[in-house]
């Protein structure tokens, strides 16, 4: 089940990050193996978004090292960092669609700006492929404001996939969606892995999402990972009452 023999695509060691007196990450270690979906579970404000934002260089860590696809992110020039960023897809919590652009323009924007000399036909074909992949071919000329929350998520995912990333980072993919749309998004995350051969980190506080999408999961508590393993392992062996309470809150309540 685990893909540990396939090698690591991400290796994080001793990651620390504080904002003044707010110590958010206090020594985080993380391995992501090729082809797996790793779920990072944690309540809101625990630093989940900070963790993946550091990975793509939107924030800078105070201490610790990050290796992504064999590249150490420390001390990269902007050009080198941008080269690495193209291999990482980042799906934002609120989708972050460019609201002055149509769906089609949203998808084209990263494509035409990073790959020069594409013909109109090639661009259209790629946009169509991705809209098909996320199941929204009919939305091509809509504005983001006309889309539902779930549709925005899908378009956001399509936009990050357009550059063929090797790693996907999903920031709370199901937050704020109704249960049925959540199920669709969970399916999409699994489908993306099959179809695009990505390795993913899925950040969530939704246990159903964790169970459906994760091969492995880990719980972020007090700035550290408290339990790591499969879904069953994490909750069967949890020594920390707060890890257990996560489960109770989601499934028993």
């Amino acid at each position, binding site marked *: 089940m685990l893909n540990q023999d396939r090698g690591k695509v991400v290796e994080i060691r001793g990651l620390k990050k504080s904002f003044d007196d707010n110590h958010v990450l206090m020594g985080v270690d993380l391995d992501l193996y090729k082809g797996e979906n790793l779920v990072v579970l944690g309540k809101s404000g625990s630093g989940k978004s900070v963790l993946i934002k550091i990975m793509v260089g939107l924030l800078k860590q105070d201490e610790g090292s990050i290796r992504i696809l064999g590249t150490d992110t420390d001390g990269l020039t902007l050009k080198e960092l941008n080269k690495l960023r193209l291999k990482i897809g980042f799906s934002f919590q609120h989708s972050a669609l460019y609201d002055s652009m149509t769906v089609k323009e949203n998808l084209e*924007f990263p494509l035409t700006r990073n790959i020069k000399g594409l013909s109109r036909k090639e661009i259209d074909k790629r946009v169509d492929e991705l809209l098909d992949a996320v199941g929204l071919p009919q939305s091509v000329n809509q504005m983001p404001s006309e889309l539902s929350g779930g549709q925005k998520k899908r378009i956001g995912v399509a936009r990050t996939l357009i550059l063929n990333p090797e790693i996907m980072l999903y920031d709370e993919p199901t937050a704020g969606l109704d249960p049925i749309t959540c199920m669709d998004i969970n399916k999409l995350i699994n489908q993306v892995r099959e179809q695009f051969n990505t390795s993913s980190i899925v950040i969530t506080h939704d246990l159903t999402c964790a169970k459906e999408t994760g091969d492995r999961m880990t719980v972020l508590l007090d700035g550290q990972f408290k339990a790591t393993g499969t879904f069953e392992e994490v909750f069967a062996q949890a020594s920390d009452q707060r890890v257990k309470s996560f489960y109770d809150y989601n499934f028993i309540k």
Partner: protein
Amino acid sequence: MSKINHEKKPLISKKIDRFFIGLASAFSFVKMFFQEVFKPPFEFKEIIRQCYEIGYRSLPLISLTGFIVGIVFTNQSRPSLSEFGATSWLPALISIAVVRAMGPLVTALIAAGKVGSSIGAEIGSMKVTEQIDAMEVSAINPFKYLVVTRTVATTLMIPILVMYTDFVALMGSFINVNQNELVSLSTFFVQVFEAISFLDLFSSLIKSLVFGFTIGIVGCYKGYNSSKGTEGVGKAANSSVVMAMFLIFIEELLALQIVNAIRYA
């Protein structure tokens, strides 16, 4: 970067710290603009789109204000001039007032309100909804795409709008003068152009460029640094206007000093 310990300092000192941190960050924002503006790609398409937006947004209000300023100023100046029997100087007086001061100032203040606030709000909302982060993670330079284009557009458009305001204000004035003093259009404009010098036109142009740059860069800076939440967007829009207007007045005073120094040298 060194961290400033806010806890142990008294309030005044904290405020002074914040002022200088703000000043430094504004300064480096402006510096970044000049580093990026001459580097390709130049985003001509986006610049043209922004120019169009700016013109489209401010034209109605500028037309109305310019026209009314022309009429009112002419009307209000007449009694003083007629005391000396000098109403024939009206076109010259209005011309100097409009070209040297009122045209650029009226245009810049209106554009600060209409354009500056919408740039602040637009970039502020892109900031809080993580659209700027989204550009960054897809290896697109958001500073170049958003800030440079908008600031270049305002810098180019304000001078054009100022010329337009000058013209509209003079037309307003002409209508009033024509009714009262029975001066023809050609006579009016001959007097208008005789009154203004090359220095007047040149300094008006430079001033308009500076006003335009100010409106663009302040709107972008406030938007780029807006705080989280919808409240942050509102604040960014509002403080763009206040800050831009404040700077425009300061620049107007400085320009006055410089031009006078040249004129009477």
